[in-house]
């Protein structure tokens, strides 16, 4: 029965399951400790076994895209910062890259390297959070999970400190502007960053021991929530979740942007596509991102950080008529910005393609046949950020 359920149409009529079974409909969320924000799954349970899962999102909808149509181009970066609130740097980057593409604006080399550096550091911070919250989902807020979580936060703090030193804020940076960056590195930042990278690299084996090398963790994750590569591609799943399913796809290497064409990006993949593969890809990507960050830090060229022409009224910056799509690799996958400009100082339409939404769309296919405990592990391993899903 289990094997059969896994491949069926997720929108199957419940009566087709077993007319004898008395199914229990359980609203899992929005106010639930482990749904990573306000996300709701309607689970149809036969005992503890999930027969059907219907995800509902939209509880955190803030009309970001509509807001973007009302504000001037230069005012948009702080708005999109709040989408994926765990990785704001990459949000901004995807947005300004779309503007630059239509404006045909060149970005100085130093700014491009800075952008890549920030993106990699952000990826480390984001993956640390993902591992920590996954551990909480598995180990509970009052148990071993919190210990992993707290340790991950300790390291994430180092990176937030670095960003604070550059931009003055810890979370919503607003540092990317059209044509370059707003803030240059302060004095002594390189050394601070080097130290942080060294510390995190030294402590990585600790997380390995607490998570991917832990027998309980392995038992909970292996062969659970298998998402095969074919289905993942069909659903538009990207990022670590796709790479864990054995598809070798990374925009940093396949469609380089910023400074990624100047360095070699090693893409981490895993074959099994289960929760464990997703966790292991994230842990290994931290290592890779640390290496890349160091690389960008060492090779950082001198020069100006902004190639934009000085304007009297930045708010009046007009983008010529046209449309473009720019996709970048955020910690969660492909974050796309589709911009339609009508020649005024506000976008005509700005569509954001969030990676998390597509990850979540795998849930109805993956969940049936698992237990409630597995549902939490699967949701945690997909690492969705509701701010990005609902926008």
């Amino acid at each position, binding site marked *: 029965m289990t094997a059969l359920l896994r491949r069926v149409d997720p929108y199957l009529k419940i009566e087709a399951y077993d007319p004898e079974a*008395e199914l229990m409909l359980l609203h899992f969320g*929005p106010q639930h400790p482990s749904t990573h924000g306000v996300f709701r799954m309607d689970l149809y349970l036969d005992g503890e076994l999930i027969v059907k899962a219907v995800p509902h999102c939209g509880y955190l909808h803030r009309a970001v895209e509509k807001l973007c149509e009302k504000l001037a181009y230069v005012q948009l970066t702080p708005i999109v910062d709040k989408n994926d609130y765990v990785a704001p740097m990459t949000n901004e980057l995807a947005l300004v890259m779309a503007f630059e593409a239509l404006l045909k604006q060149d970005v100085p080399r130093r700014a491009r390297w800075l952008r890549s550096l920030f993106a990699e550091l952000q990826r480390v911070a984001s993956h640390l959070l993902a591992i920590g919250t996954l551990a909480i989902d598995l180990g509970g807020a009052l148990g071993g999970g919190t210990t992993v979580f707290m340790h991950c936060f300790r390291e994430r703090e180092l990176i937030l400190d670095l960003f604070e030193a550059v931009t003055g804020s810890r979370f919503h940076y607003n540092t990317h502007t059209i044509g370059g960056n707003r803030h240059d590195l302060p004095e002594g930042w390189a050394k601070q960053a080097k130290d942080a990278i060294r510390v995190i690299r030294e402590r990585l084996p600790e997380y390995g021991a607490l998570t991917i090398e832990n027998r309980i963790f392995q038992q909970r994750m292996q062969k659970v929530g298998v998402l095969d590569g074919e289905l993942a591609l069909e659903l538009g799943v990207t990022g670590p979740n796709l790479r864990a399913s054995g598809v070798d796809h990374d925009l940093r290497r396949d469609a380089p942007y910023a400074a990624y064409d100047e360095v070699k990006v090693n893409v981490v993949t895993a074959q099994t596509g289960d929760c464990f593969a997703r966790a292991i890809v994230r842990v290994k990507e931290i290592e890779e991102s640390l290496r890349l960050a160091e690389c960008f830090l060492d090779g950082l060229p001198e020069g100006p950080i902004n190639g934009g022409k000085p304007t009297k009224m930045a708010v009046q910056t007009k983008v010529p008529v046209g449309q473009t799509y720019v996709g970048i690799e955020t910690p969660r996958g492909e974050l796309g910005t589709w911009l339609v400009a009508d020649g005024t100082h506000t976008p005509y339409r700005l569509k954001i393609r969030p990676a998390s939404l597509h990850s979540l769309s795998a849930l109805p296919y993956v969940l049936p046949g698992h237990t409630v405990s597995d549902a939490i592990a699967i949701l945690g391993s997909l690492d969705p950020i509701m701010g990005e899903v609902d926008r």
Partner: protein
Amino acid sequence: MTSGLALLAFLMVATAVAGSMLIGARILRVVSTKNERLKTSTYECGEVPSGMAWVRFHARYYVVALFFVLFDIETAFLLPWATIVREVGVRGLVAVGSFVVVLMLGWVWASRKGALQWQ
């Protein structure tokens, strides 16, 4: 010395502790004048509960429950013997041993059949 009475006294103390906490709470606790339906409905992650929780619950471990009954009876037989292992010696050992061996054969058979798998 059987200590039935002492045990009774202990149980009374335990009850008194639990009871006094309940009474203390009754005196100290805040009493709300609002008792809306929504407030006293059960928690289902902030959604309106869909139906009652009193459903025919598919307990997948009923085989395990049967096993429990078997093994618990086994231990019930073992308990009186356990205190006099020295006295009954080899004879007792053989008797209890044959019983346990039969039971464990059943265990092996069941685990071969996969009865000890949850799903």
